[in-house]
Every structure is written in structure tokens, then in C-alpha cells.
């Protein structure tokens, strides 16, 4: 949709974005400061807090684990979440109305309690491997974005278009991929971004689900911060921003989703 914008709206939105971005300059400044503590404006310029991350082996290995968990967990959440979102909107009358709210539960239950319960009931009682439970736990944690954010996009989708395609002989699954999905791609991308970031940043659930030999990047950063108060944490934030841009570019290229640019 594109209509002319009222100047007041444009100004307000610019202000909002200015405020969103302003602290990022402070963090960027702090991340290159040649001091052993966080400071702004930076004193001297160095990249050693960035190279530091790559030199510490625990950061490297946990970054890989975190990436795997975030990508697989998000993919799993979308894989089961999108059909659920579709069913909730397409067959609204045939599914109970409370079902949609069930998918909010993973972010409604305090994360510490969720992690604690998962460790107690799933990892220990069922004896499942740490990595699997960590992955499932993250998929669960980001499921609300997959179901509800995609669902919000589907709510404004006109299902009569889909019915027309099917009545013209297009198979339902093909119709979904060629007619429905392109129309909700912005919602899918938004859900992907939110889910990926939530998983990458998660501490509280991971605290309990990591185990011997398996840890995640945010937990490793917390560990580092117990003893070191240097700008490494700022440079990690900056690197995560760069990484996210990269991941979004890859998603755009491989899945061919028109990245918010319709």
C-alpha cells in the first residue's frame, strides 16, 4: 500500500528511528575504544575487541552452536508454525478460539521456569541428548513469532483468491506456495527475523538446557563478563548486527523471498 504521507507522520517516524539508532552509535563507539572498559566517546581506535572474539576459542565454538540452534530452531518453528497459523486463519470456525492463545504461552511463561521445567522433565526424566532438547527448547521459545506474526499477516489475506486458484484446478499445496506464501512473505520474514534474534540472544532458557560440552554464545559472553569488563560485549553486539544483515541477505537469496521490497 502506498499513499501520500502527512508530514507530521513522517516527522514522528523519523524521530522514532533517530531514537532507535542513537544508542547504537554509542555502542559502536565503545566497541572500538582502546580502553579496557566501556567508554564513550571512544579513546583511541582499536579493533582488538573484535579480534579478541575470534581469538578466544570458547567464543568460536559457542558461536557455531548458537548459529546452528538459531537457524535450525527457527526453521523448525516456521515449518510447524506456518501451517498452524494457516489453519487458525483459514479454518477459524472449525478450530477452538483459544487455540491461537496457546501459541503465546512460550513467551508468557517466565523463561527461567520454562528452562527449569524442561531440564527437569525432558532432559533428565526422558534422558534426551542435551543438543536435541536445547534445539527443541529454542524452537518452542520462538514458536509464538512463527504462529502469531505470520498469523497476523494471514488475517488480512483474502482467502477467496486461494479458493479461486483451487477451483481452477491448482493443487492445494501448490496453491499455498504460489498464491498464499508470496502474499504473506513480509510476515514470514518478520517472523524469521524476530525468531532468529530471540534464539541468538536467549540466556534464561539456555542456562538450563546447555550441558557438559555444549554451551551457547550469550552464556559464554556472560561468563566472560564475570571477570572481564572490557568492550568485548559491545563488539559482540556490533558483530551480531553484521551477522544478522548477512543472514537476512542469505535468506533473501536462497529462498528467493522478496525481502520486504514488494
Amino acid at each position, binding site marked *: 500500500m502506498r*499513499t501520500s504521507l*502527512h508530514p507530521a507522520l513522517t516527522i514522528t*517516524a523519523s524521530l*522514532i*528511528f533517530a531514537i*532507535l*539508532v*542513537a*544508542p*547504537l552509535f*554509542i*555502542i559502536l563507539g565503545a566497541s572500538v575504544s582502546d580502553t579496557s572498559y*566501556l567508554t*564513550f566517546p571512544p579513546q583511541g581506535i582499536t579493533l582488538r575487541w573484535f579480534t579478541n572474539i575470534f581469538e578466544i576459542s570458547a567464543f568460536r565454538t559457542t558461536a557455531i552452536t548458537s548459529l546452528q540452534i538459531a537457524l535450525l530452531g527457527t526453521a523448525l518453528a516456521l515449518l510447524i*508454525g506456518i*501451517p*498452524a497459523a494457516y*489453519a*487458525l486463519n483459514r*479454518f477459524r470456525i472449525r*478450530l477452538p478460539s483459544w*487455540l491461537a*492463545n496457546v*501459541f*503465546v504461552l512460550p*513467551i*508468557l*511463561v*517466565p523463561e*527461567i*521456569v520454562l528452562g527449569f*521445567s524442561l531440564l527437569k*522433565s*525432558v532432559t533428565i526424566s526422558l534422558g534426551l541428548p542435551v543438543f536435541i532438547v536445547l534445539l*527443541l527448547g529454542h*524452537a518452542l521459545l520462538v*514458536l509464538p513469532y*512463527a504462529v502469531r*506474526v*505470520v498469523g*497476523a*499477516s494471514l*488475517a*488480512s489475506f483474502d482467502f477467496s483468491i486461494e479458493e479461486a486458484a483451487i477451483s481452477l484446478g491448482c493443487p492445494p499445496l501448490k496453491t499455498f506456495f504460489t498464491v498464499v506464501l508470496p502474499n*504473506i512473505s*513480509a*510476515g514470514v520474514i*518478520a*517472523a524469521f527475523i*524476530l525468531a532468529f*534474534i530471540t534464539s*541468538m540472544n536467549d540466556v*534464561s532458557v539456555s542456562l538450563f538446557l546447555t550441558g557438559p560440552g555444549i554451551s551457547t554464545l*550469550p552464556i559464554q559472553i556472560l561468563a566472560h563478563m564475570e571477570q572481564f569488563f572490557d568492550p568485548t*560485549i*559491545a563488539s559482540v*553486539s556490533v558483530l551480531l548486527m553484521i551477522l544478522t544483515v548477512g543472514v537476512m541477505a542469505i535468506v533473501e537469496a536462497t529462498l528467493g523471498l522478496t525481502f*520486504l*521490497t*514488494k
Partner: protein
Amino acid sequence: MVKRLTPWILAGPASLLVLLLLILPVGATLLATFADAKGWAAPYLAFFNSGFRRTVLWRTVEISLITTVISVILGFIAAYVVAQMPGRLKSIMIIAAVFPLLTGVVVRSFAWLILLGKNGILNSALLSLGLITEPISMLYTEGAVIAAMVYLFVPLMILTLSGVLEGIPKDVLEAASSLGAAPFAVFRQVILPLAMPGLIVGAVLVFTGSFTSYATPQLLGGERQMMMGTLLYQRAMVTFDWTGASTVAAIMVVVTIAIVLVMTRLARRLNPMAA
């Protein structure tokens, strides 16, 4: 037969994941709070008997609601403008909106110290302009906590809504304006109803997110602005009192569900068309 089951087959795997990994395990944890030796309600009575804890609960509700309202309004305006932008610019704006979510809570609160602290940028500016004679303390107040949370949740709102506003067909709006509807009427009668599902989802995500938040209120509010998440954390991770922690969690879950249901009802009454 198959057709009747289709909705359940589609929603099944996701429902099963929530049932097996959340409802059952967390349910077991929360049920354990009723096994108290002093009677099933004892931990809850103990909670509500403390004026301090009631204050914390009330403050948490208040801060979360205010955060939600502000985030919804600001997020809607920003997302609306983003939706009107040409392709490249739109991508850049979305990425800019996501970036705050990628900053760790400690660095983020460091940035707030630099901006709003005693010797921060804002205080220095006000001092040099002669508007104040002594630095004002802007941190460790309810306002500071709300500001920091809004900062964190507006991006979530923008992303949720951008997917929804994107889906509103251009011709609907054009038809409305060409029929002579005033801009506000177009907003009230066309855009708002169509955006309502997104607003509800966004508001629910923001509210639940702020209700359970823990690190941000602790860093920017300190003990003066303690929220439920901190109480829970102290019980669970410091005194290892999981019954106490689960009691706090159960209260949080019940209150959040109640408020989310009320919010959804209200939104539906405002707009019967929306989900």
C-alpha cells in the same frame, strides 16, 4: 473425513510441541506449589500478605501496560511510514529497527548511562543551555524503566505490523480516498480495522515480553523499581527456593493470561471484524 481433520493436521505438530514441552512440564512445576505442607494455598497467601510483593505485582502490571500502549502507538506510526517507503529504503529502515534487539542488555544500559546519566549527554546539554543548574537524575525511576522497555519493544511492534500493513491492498486505500473519505476517516474505517490483527498480536507480544522482563528493570530501575521477574529470579537462582519461584511464576502466568484475554476482547469490541 480427511477434510474435516485438515485443520488439526496442520495445527497438530505445533500444538503438540507446546503441549509436550510446555504445558506438561511447566504445569508439573506450577502444580508442585500446591503441595505445600501448610495447606495448598499457603505460598500464595504468603505472597499476597506482603504489602511489598503486592506493590511489585501492581508495579509490574502498570509498567507493562504503559510500555505496551506507548510501543503500540509509536510502532504503528513507524511501521505505517515504513510501509510507504520505496523498496531499498524500506529494507534499511527494517534493519535499523531490528538493530536495537541485537544489543546485549549490559551494553544497552551502558548507552543509557551515557545518554541519561548524572554526567550524561542530556544533562550536559541542559546544563550548558542553562535550563538546569544541577544534573537531574533521570535513571532509576519508573520513567527510565518504561523508556528502556519501549526502546526494546517498538522494534518488535514495527516488525509485526510491517508484515500486516504490507498486506493491505493499495487499491482499498485508493478506493476509499477517491470516494472522498477524509484521511482520518480512511485511517479509522479502513486502515485500523485491517491492521487490528497485527496490533493485537503485537500488543500481546509486547505485554508478555515486558511483564516477564528482568534484566532491563534491574539495570535501569534498580531495587527501587523492582518487578516480578526479579523476585522470581532471586527465589530461583539465589535462594534455590523453587517452590517460591514457581509461586511467583504461577501468579505471573495467571495475571498475564487474564490481561491478554481482556486486551483481545477489548480490541475485538472495537473492531468486530478482527480475529
